[in-house]
């Protein structure tokens, strides 16, 4: 449980007399009870208002509302400083009002560091709000408003005090996370079915292609065997003619040799074609020119880095301007951005390579040309031999042997089938292209498309799942708020009724429930005294059940209570809070203060704050003890039980 104590406050420039109140004992612990007597017109209401404002960071004020706080001396500014102890750590809130610009600003000091603005310690932030401060800086009006449906929101106070707002804030946080995550994915959220179907189609297509491929490989093997068998048949029939056989063997050998020549020529030509200067003679000339230019510029020997060093030492810059110290420093600082040793090494290698490979091989272009010519000759020879073979076969067929013709025909058909199968396998096995669609025959393309579709589907599924999960949590938190609120209210109603029974035994009232405000059982309103008693009973229950040990500051604690109820209230008030600060008038002392004194077991201090006037000066005790009497330019604060008890407004009025 967090403990909050008010150690005191200082007020300067406001309607109440300037004063400094300390609620601390010499031991630095705050008094359990402080009674502050302020005659009517001394600014009691103003002081309470300032305490509420300074503990809620209120900056929004109406013009008249703000001017009503101003001292009669019409100062431009006023300051109210509240000193706090939160969980044994000191904090200060300074509220400054500028009546001319009508602005209210705050400064907070915590742990020795000063911050602009109202920055209360985290432990109290949820109750140091405009909505909650009236519950612990309390007056009779709040008691009335507790019963008003449009008045103080008991619901908000309960939510804040019992931390129900934490659940709501966590829910908002999770929703914000979801919104950030889903930002830009609205489109992706639609078409889940379409994406799922596409993924299934691609999966199916992949399986079809894999099955086809496996089948085609088997088919190709058997077609290849069949083709070879038919080839052998055809060869056997062809070779029955000896002359034709010998011619064919010769042509086959020659064709094989020519094909090997083509292969060798291709390799040699490609090797030569790798030298760019051999492919493009102009490029060779340009590369030589580049090397010559580098020599002319003395690069890299005279590297730019060194150039800038020399330039920095010169009297004037290359642009003609004098070389000032600033320019010199800039040139030195930036010289490293230009050519250095590593760059020079690269340039030297380039120059050397141009010399060896370009200038050293002036015949490279003609060598490539010769190689291409050789390749062309080899291809021509191979093709001519192939044509001769075909012509020989045609001649053999033309001799009219039906068996040969049939075998040739069957061989050709088998060759065509094998070729078709091989092409189909090649199409399945080829590399993917960007043009491939979902109906492609290329297995690699379908696999890539499937992977992308799977990623798309996974992302959309994850996004949707996250939305569902965030929704689940939001429902849980909402249900928890509802459950907790109902339970807290029930406990508060029972506890409040139990207290009311003791307080108002002669004129009983009962609380039926808590909605946005308190709801009485069987009656809409109650007397002023009953309402004040209800307020105390409710707040006592509220504070007893919460997690904060708050101070309780009350304006006119007995109000319209009759004497019997006053006595009861005096007994129970010290139970509401471990720190009570009660603002009273002299008329409230009867049947209250002595009983309160006893209930507080003497752990209380008495203060009387009066506005300085001729009349009040005559009443002040004649002492120079500053611990007993503190005077400011317009007020006096007397810390004395005797003075408190004897002080009578009527006497002051007479004087």
């Amino acid at each position: 449980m967090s403990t909050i104590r008010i150690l005191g406050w200082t007020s300067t420039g406001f309607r109440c007399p300037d004063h400094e109140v300390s609620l601390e004992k010499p031991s630095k612990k705050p008094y359990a009870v402080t009674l502050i007597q302020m005659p009517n017109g001394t600014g009691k209401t103003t002081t309470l208002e300032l305490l509420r404002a300074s503990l809620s960071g209120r900056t929004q004020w109406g013009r008249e509302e703000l001017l009503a706080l101003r001292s009669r001396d019409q100062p431009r500014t006023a300051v109210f400083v509240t000193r706090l102890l939160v969980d044994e750590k000191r904090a200060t809130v300074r509220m400054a009002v500028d009546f001319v610009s009508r602005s209210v600003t705050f400064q907070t000091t915590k742990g020795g560091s000063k911050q602009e603005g109202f920055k209360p310690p985290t432990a109290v932030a949820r109750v140091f709000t405009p909505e909650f401060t009236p519950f612990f800086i309390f007056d009779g009006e709040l008691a009335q408003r507790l019963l008003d449906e449009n008045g103080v929101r008991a619901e908000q106070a309960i939510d804040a005090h019992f931390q129900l707002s934490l659940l709501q804030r966590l829910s908002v946080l999770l929703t914000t996370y979801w919104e950030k995550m889903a930002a830009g994915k609205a489109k992706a959220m639609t078409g889940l079915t379409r994406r799922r179907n596409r993924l299934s189609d691609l999966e199916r297509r992949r399986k079809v292609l894999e099955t086809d491929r496996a089948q085609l490989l088997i088919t190709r093997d058997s077609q290849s065997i069949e083709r070879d068998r038919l080839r052998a048949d055809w060869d056997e029939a062809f070779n029955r003619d000896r002359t034709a056989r010998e011619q064919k063997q010769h042509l086959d050998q020659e064709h094989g040799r020519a094909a090997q020549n083509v292969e060798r020529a291709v390799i040699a030509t490609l090797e030569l074609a790798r030298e760019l200067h051999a492919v493009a003679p102009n490029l060779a000339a340009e590369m030589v020119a580049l090397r010559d230019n580098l020599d002319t510029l003395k690069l890299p020997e005279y590297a730019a880095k060194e150039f800038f060093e020399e330039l920095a030492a010169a009297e004037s810059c290359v642009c003609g301007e004098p070389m000032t110290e600033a320019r010199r420093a800039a040139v030195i600082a930036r010289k490293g951005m230009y050519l250095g040793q590593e760059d020079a090494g690269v340039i030297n290698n380039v120059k050397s390579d141009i010399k060896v490979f370009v200038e050293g091989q002036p015949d490279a272009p003609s060598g490539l040309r010769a190689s291409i010519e050789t390749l062309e000759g080899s291809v021509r020879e191979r093709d001519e031999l192939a044509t001769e073979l075909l012509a020989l076969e045609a001649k053999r067929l033309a001799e009219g042997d039906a068996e040969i013709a049939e075998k040739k025909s069957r061989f050709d058909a088998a060759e065509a089938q094998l070729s078709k199968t091989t092409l189909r396998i090649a199409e399945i096995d080829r590399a993917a292209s960007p043009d491939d669609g979902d109906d492609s025959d290329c297995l690699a393309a379908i696999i890539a498309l499937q992977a992308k579709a799977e990623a798309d589907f996974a992302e959309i599924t994850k996004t949707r799942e996250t939305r569902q999960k965030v929704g689940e949590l939001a429902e849980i938190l909402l249900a928890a708020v509802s459950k907790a609120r109902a339970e807290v209210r029930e406990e508060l109603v029972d506890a409040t009724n139990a207290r009311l029974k003791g307080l108002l035994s002669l004129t009983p009232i009962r609380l039926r429930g808590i909605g946005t405000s308190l709801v009485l059982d069987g009656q809409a309103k109650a007397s002023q005294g009953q309402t004040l008693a209800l307020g105390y009973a409710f707040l006592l229950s509220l504070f007893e059940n919460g997690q904060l040990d708050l101070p309780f500051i009350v304006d006119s604690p007995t109000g319209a209570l009759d004497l019997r109820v006053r006595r009861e209230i005096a007994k129970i008030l010290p139970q509401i809070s471990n720190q009570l600060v009660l603002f009273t008038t002299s008329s409230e002392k009867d049947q209250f203060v002595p009983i309160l004194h006893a209930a507080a077991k003497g752990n209380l201090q008495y203060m009387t704050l009066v506005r300085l006037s001729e009349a009040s000066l005559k009443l002040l005790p004649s002492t120079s003890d500053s611990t007993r009497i503190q005077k400011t330019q317009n007020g006096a604060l007397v810390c004395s039980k005797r003075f408190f008890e004897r002080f009578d407004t009527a006497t002051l009025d007479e004087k």
Partner: protein
Amino acid sequence: MALHRVVVEAVRKACKASGQSEAVANRLIAWLEQAARGSAELTYNADQDTRIEDLLSVVTARSELERLLASEGGEEE
């Protein structure tokens, strides 16, 4: 300042009623507890993504049927 017992109980009950595991309740309560003590922020920032994802990893996204059955069970309760 610790989280109020009423809040702790309400979160546990709500988690149970929605068919979520105890791990969900434990993570929620730990987070709320830290927020109540002032050692965790409850305003969204990107640094909290890991914590949120950890929380979501133990949440079960129920089907419509499961939600319906859970709500009927809750009513009976």
